């Protein structure tokens, strides 16, 4: 399932590369789409002979992103997958609690590396609500449903970055001029989670 997700993510990122770059051009430097596409193309290239277990695969994805994406999003998404990989050592089946554990670990890693918090207008504003949506899940529903809810939370979280004033990353240089535009990293995070939900669904 992980490989299917990653392939689908690579496809979606590639399809949406231009719109991600346009978002980044408005409040950043216009490379987010190209950065992500380059990284996920490299990830897809590693999937023909994937490592046997989940932890090793996630680590490989993280390392691949770190060494191909560059910019701010490279270390951040790289850390996201690396830290998911570390957490994966403790999970067996990819059920809802497992995804909650993995994504929470990844998000914590992003927050630690980027020193950003919710409301700073970054990818965290899509990722944090997604994890919260999974955590909010009471009695175990089926995985597709829960991941769909997480993806929807990420999309809404990304949209909610529009009015925010950026306090981290390149958009923060703009000060108040950063308000009124969606954060590109939040948008790409929402794409990744949507691809995950679509894979499960």
């Amino acid at each position, binding site marked *: 399932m992980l490989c299917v997700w990653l392939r689908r993510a690579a496809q979606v990122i590639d399809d949406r590369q231009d719109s991600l770059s346009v978002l980044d*051009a408005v409040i950043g*430097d216009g*490379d987010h789409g190209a950065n992500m596409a380059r990284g996920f193309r490299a990830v897809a290239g590693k999937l023909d002979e994937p490592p046997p277990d989940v932890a090793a695969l996630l680590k490989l994805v993280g390392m691949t992103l770190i060494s191909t*994406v*560059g910019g701010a999003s490279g*270390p951040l998404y790289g850390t996201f997958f690396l830290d998911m990989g570390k957490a994966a050592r403790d999970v067996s089946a990819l059920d809802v609690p497992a995804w909650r554990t993995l994504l929470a670990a990844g998000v914590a890693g992003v927050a630690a590396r*980027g020193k950003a918090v919710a409301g700073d207008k970054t990818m965290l504003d899509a990722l944090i609500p997604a994890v919260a949506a999974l955590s909010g899940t009471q009695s175990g529903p089926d995985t597709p449903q829960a991941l769909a809810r997480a993806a929807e939370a990420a999309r809404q979280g990304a949209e909610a970055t529009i009015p925010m004033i950026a306090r*981290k990353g390149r958009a923060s240089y703009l*000060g108040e001029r950063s308000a009124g535009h969606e954060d590109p990293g939040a948008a790409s995070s929402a794409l990744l989670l949507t691809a995950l939900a679509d894979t499960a669904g």
Partner: protein
Amino acid sequence: MKKLINAPDRVVTEALEGMAAAHPDLLTVHLDPAYIMRADAPVKGKAALVSGGGSGHEPMHGGYVGRGMLDAACPGAVFTSPTPDQILAATRAVTGEQGALHIVKNYTGDVMNFDMAADLAREEGLRLEAVIIDDDVAVKDSLYTAGRRGVGGTILAEKICGGAAEAGADLGSLARLCRDVNASVRSMGVALTSCTVPHVGKPSFELGEDEMEFGIGIHGEPGRKRVGMESADRIADMLMQPILEDLPFRRGDPVLLFVNGLGGTPLIELYIVYRAAHRIAQAHGLTVARSLVGSYITSLEMAGTSITLLRLTDEMTRYWDAPCVTPALRWGA
């Protein structure tokens, strides 16, 4: 988009191949991962200087590799910080027992990627220091931003530290000197036109015939405000005043005045800006002891200029004057 390129995703590699072909006496170029190093690196007994950043700012940084300046530079994709493995490979290739100094411009991506590389390099047993350059007064340095950007001051830091390293300064002194330069340098820029990132294919922003983007960065990021077009004298004043106030520069200070072109502005205009900036500096009571005029840190084909002012110490002046032999900056040898 009209550019002298073959394909957007081959821009960086092909430019590196061009540099390798043009400067075989000065540089060794490694392609995967991409870095440029001194042809004679590692230099025994010398602390190494490593810098890097997105491409599109040429000649920075690859053009500053050579005797008396950088030992290695890591070019990322256009406007994109290089990756840790690149930086690690470059650092490894040039670093000996004296260790290495990473000179990092203050952008989230650069800082994180250099950080990760430094961690990895230290794990391998290399001695490493890192100094962050953040000289752009256009950005408010506060808890609510990523802090000031590193711009024109970077080149002055690389030249001065390069001179010191060549003269045998140890890693600790180099890091201290680099921080001194950063503490004494301020910059500000203005764009008259946008630039076009090759893989985007259209201008990063649109500017009217009567507008300029004030407080611009070097990545086509919008500046802090858009204002009406002004004369060269007025623009020089609008750039110089915040610079002078910020440090602040004081009557009697000896300074290096650096007027930079952003890529699409011809030299004749830079000299007109230099003239105005020099007069303003003099009127402020400063002694312009050294100058630099040209397109040294650019933003692809963006038209515009930035001004950088450095308060010199005798030590800085000595190392500024020291010989350097790089593709883009060369004197004394």
